Each structure stands twice: as C-alpha cells, then as structure tokens.
C-alpha cells in the first residue's frame, strides 16, 4: 500500500458523496423533478455536504485529529437526524411516507444509511493511515483530487441556489411542508413558520404521564352530565385480607361465587363474602412483556382470570392445584403453584392508541373483552375498545354518543363525556358499566348502539378503582380497600 492509497480511497468516497446523494438531490431531484427538501431534510443533506467538506480538508492538509473528530461527530449527528426524521413515519402503512422514494425507500431513511456508511468509511481510512501522517503544510493536490474539489463546489453552489429559492435569505428557513421547487420567483415561498413559538419537549407526543386517579374531582354534581339519579349506599365492607400493595380492580364470578382482586402485581381470588383469600399469586411483571401495573381484572372462562395493565398488556392465568412450581418460577414472584400462565401479550388499539386504561370487562355472551380509556394531557377521548376472545384482536372501537332519548344532556359550558376517568368496568345484561373515578359516576354503555344508555351518581366514594356486580348489587372497590355496596341500577333507559 503506497502513501497515496488512503487519499485515493478518500477521494473516491468524497466523489461518491458529491455525485451521489448531494449532487443527485439538487440537480436531478430538485432542478429536474422539482423536489424540495423540508427543514429536516435540508439539515440532513447539509450534514452530508459537511462530511464531504471534511474529506476535502483531509485531502488538502492530511488527517489532522480535529478533522477526523469533526467528521465522526457530524456522522454520528447524521445518524441521529436520520433516526429522528424516519421515526415521524414509523407508524404509517406500507409505502406511505414523505416526499419521494429512491429504490423503494424514502429519502430521509436513506440518509441514516449514508451517514452510517460514512462513519464506517472513516474508520477504514483511519486503519489505513500510518503514524505521523498528518502534515503541517498543505499537500499538493493530484488532478483527481482537484477535480473532486471543483465538483464539490459546483454541488454546494447548486444547493445554495436551491436553498435561496426554496427557503430564502436569513432569517427565512426551511419549512415543514415545502412546495415543489421552481426557478420562477413568483412561485417561491419564504417562511418564518419554524421560528414561531412552540413548546420544547424531549419525547413530544410520547411524553404521556401514567394514569393516576389522585386529585380527580369526586362530586357527581360537577360532572359533564350534571344532576343524575343517585345510587344510594347500602353498606360498606372493609377488606382485611393481606394484599401486597394498593388494590387496583375488582371482578365477580357468579358461577362459583368468588371475587377477583388485583394489586399492581398481585392476583387474588377471594370468597363471595370478601373475607378470605382462596388463591393468590404475584406476577413477575418484568418477564418478557412489560406488564407495568395491573389496572383491570376480569374472570374469563371458568377457572381462568385476566389481569390487564394500564399499558394494555395482559396476562391470563388458569387456576391449578397441581401447578409445577419449578416451571412457573419465571412467571411469578410468589405462590408458584396456584396458577398456570396461559398467555401474556399486548392488546393493540387504534382509536384508543396513546391512552392508558384502568379497566377491563369480559362479556361471556359475545366472547368479548372491553376496555375504556382514561384521558391524559395530550389525548382526551373516552374510547371503548372491544377485543375478540378467540384471537385477542381488536374487533371494534367507538366513542359512545349521548342519546337524547335517555334524557341525558351535557351540562352548560364546554363539557364532554371525555372528562370521565373510567377506573372500573363490568359487563351485565348486555351492557357495559363504566365507573368513573372523576365525578363518581357510573356510566351505562350500550355496546351495540355505541351510545350511553344511562348514567348514575354514586356520591361518597373515595377514589374508586374497581366495579363488580353480584346479584342486584354493585360492588365498588376503593383505593382504601373499602368496598361500597350500592343497589345496582335498573334496566338502562331504552331507546324510544
């Protein structure tokens, strides 16, 4: 290998950058096809130009440490830019994206690959260098190196022309949705939209706080539906059973007269009087699927229970008196021989996406699970999602509508049922009952009609987390382990 070999390789690398992504982008995509980069694309393209320029510095002055350091930094920043930009379109369907495709991939995704190749190429070139290669005086350029520099200047000048037409002189800058390139000044749009005030955030729309019922307004009278019929308290039961933490939900199994109670990690089956734990386990919520904190629970088939986490991940367990404790070590933290794990996975939603849930209900007649969202600072919608038991797949989603035939109406002002914060749910008589910890309201939802069939105030509840029906009574579990028993509402108001 001669002394010029690394420079020859570097020259070819810079030429590839200049003729390839940099030159093609401006002269072919831009000037011929009218493609205009968005503000992020401009930064990605500029980064490639800068890496090529670093290469020219090395060709002229040798591989000085500051050139190599800056080249690696720009390359690393370029990979980040590519990730950041591509992530905008991660959730889209096949073929969807922004602007043009090249060989089946959109331009902003190519930049991630190109920057990565640049970093690899720099590493290879460094391996090829000898000690003391850096020079204090400028190198004499070979013709091919001089040609490369001229081509670089032409490509950079072309980009300057396109940048002037598409983005304008300072302080104008690139736009989120640029119009196509044109040489006609009348078609140029110079914008200051990127300078407009906007909240600075690290995670953007993904920065959603975990659900929390603390601090919610509890007075039903202040709810979005105003004054409602009241479900009066009949008695209270304090749960004296030992739990491993705060209770999070309640369900009832009429077949065997038993209750199901969950904590953040625990699953407990209690007798019909809520006085004795019959079976329990603590789930290893960190194994495989992140189960976070259980927020909902329901009986499924006989002897089978489901616990749903606030992030819509779930675990289904089957009761067993002969469970293999050694085999179950991976699934549970305690009580390894009382359940077998049937499934552990995640529910996928569309309308309810980006919202947490604190409830799940199972309707054995339709073989469906129901979840109801809780609002957060970024998304405020009450969405009911239905999942088919057979494949645990989303089968229907809707936002229940107010039905005027029920006599229900929104209170004065900018009110909405999206203000409800459903912390417990149960299916009974073909209806979905959703208990809101905000405004202590029991909302009756008609899943077939996608409507709210009734609503009842349940005053006096302290942070309700779970709901179950036993006979003609509704059991409401509070965070303080108190079960408030009220008369179950009559048949929901029918559509006249």
């Amino acid at each position: 290998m001669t002394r010029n070999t690394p420079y020859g390789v570097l020259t070819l690398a810079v030429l590839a950058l200049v003729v390839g992504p940099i030159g093609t982008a401006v002269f072919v995509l831009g000037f011929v096809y009218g493609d205009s980069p968005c503000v992020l694309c401009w930064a990605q393209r500029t980064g490639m130009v800068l890496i090529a320029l670093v290469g020219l510095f090395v060709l002229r002055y040798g591989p000085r440490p500051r050139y190599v350091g800056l080249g690696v930094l720009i390359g690393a920043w370029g990979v980040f830019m590519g990730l950041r930009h591509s992530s905008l379109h991660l959730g889209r369907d096949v073929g969807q994206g922004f602007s043009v495709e090249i060989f089946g991939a959109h331009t902003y995704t190519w930049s991630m690959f190109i920057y990565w190749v640049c970093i690899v190429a720099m590493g290879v070139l460094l391996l090829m260098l000898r000690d003391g290669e850096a020079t204090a005086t400028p190198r004499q350029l070979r013709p091919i190196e001089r040609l490369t520099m001229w081509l670089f200047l032409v490509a950079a000048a072309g980009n300057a022309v396109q940048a002037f037409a598409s983005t304008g002189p300072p302080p104008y800058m690139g736009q989120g949705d640029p119009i196509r390139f044109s040489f006609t000044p009348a078609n140029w749009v110079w914008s200051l939209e990127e300078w407009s005030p906007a909240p600075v955030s690290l995670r953007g729309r993904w920065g959603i706080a975990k659900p929390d019922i603390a601090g919610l307004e509890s007075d039903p009278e202040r709810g979005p539906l105003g004054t409602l019929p009241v479900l009066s308290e009949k008695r209270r039961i304090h749960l004296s059973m030992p739990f491993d933490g705060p209770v999070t939900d309640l369900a009832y199994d009429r077949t065997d007269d038993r209750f199901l109670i969950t904590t953040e990690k625990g699953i407990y089956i209690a007798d019909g009087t809520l006085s004795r734990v019959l079976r329990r386990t603590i789930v290893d919520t960190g194994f495989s699927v992140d189960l976070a904190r259980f927020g909902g629970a329901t009986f499924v088939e006989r002897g089978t229970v489901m616990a749903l986490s606030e992030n819509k991940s779930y675990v289904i367990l089957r009761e067993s008196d002969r469970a293999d404790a050694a085999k179950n070590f991976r699934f549970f933290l305690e009580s390894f021989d009382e359940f077998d794990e049937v499934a552990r996975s995640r529910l996928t939603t569309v309308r309810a996406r980006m919202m947490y849930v604190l409830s799940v209900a199972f309707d054995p007649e339709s073989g469906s699970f129901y979840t109801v969202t809780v609002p957060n600072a970024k998304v405020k919608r009450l969405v009911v999602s239905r999942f088919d038991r057979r494949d645990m797949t989303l089968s229907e989603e809707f936002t229940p509508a107010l039905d005027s035939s029920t006599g229900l109406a929104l209170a004065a002002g900018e009110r909405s049922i999206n203000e409800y914060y459903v912390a417990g749910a149960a299916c009974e008589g073909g209806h979905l009952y959703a208990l809101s910890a905000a405004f202590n309201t029991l909302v009756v939802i008609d899943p077939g009609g996608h409507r709210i069939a009734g609503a009842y105030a349940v005053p006096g509840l302290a942070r309700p987390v779970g709901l179950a029906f036993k006979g003609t009574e509704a059991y409401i579990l509070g965070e303080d382990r108190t079960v408030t028993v009220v008369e179950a509402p009559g048949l929901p108001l029918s559509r006249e």
Partner: protein
Amino acid sequence: MEFLNFLLICSAGFLVLRRPQRERLAFGLLVASTLLTVILFLIGTRTSILPGFNY
C-alpha cells in the same frame, strides 16, 4: 438560513481549494456551518427532540 449555511460551506471549500494557507479561517467556517446545521435541525424538532419511538 439554509442559504446562509451553503454560503459558509462554499466559502470554506473555496479556501481549501484556492487559498490553502487560510486553513484556520476555512476550518472556522466549517465548524460554524456544522453548528448552524445542528441548531436548524433542533429548531425543526424542538417539539419532540428525541426520535418518536415507543420509549
């Protein structure tokens, strides 16, 4: 601002090619352009600086 950035880049490239003895100025322009690129990208992504992944 992108136009300004390419003026900086063209100037640095010209110095490297035609005025190699002005290395310090050329490198200063290169660093300035790099910083401007980073700043412009951050302005464009300030409402969600990190990639939009499911963290």
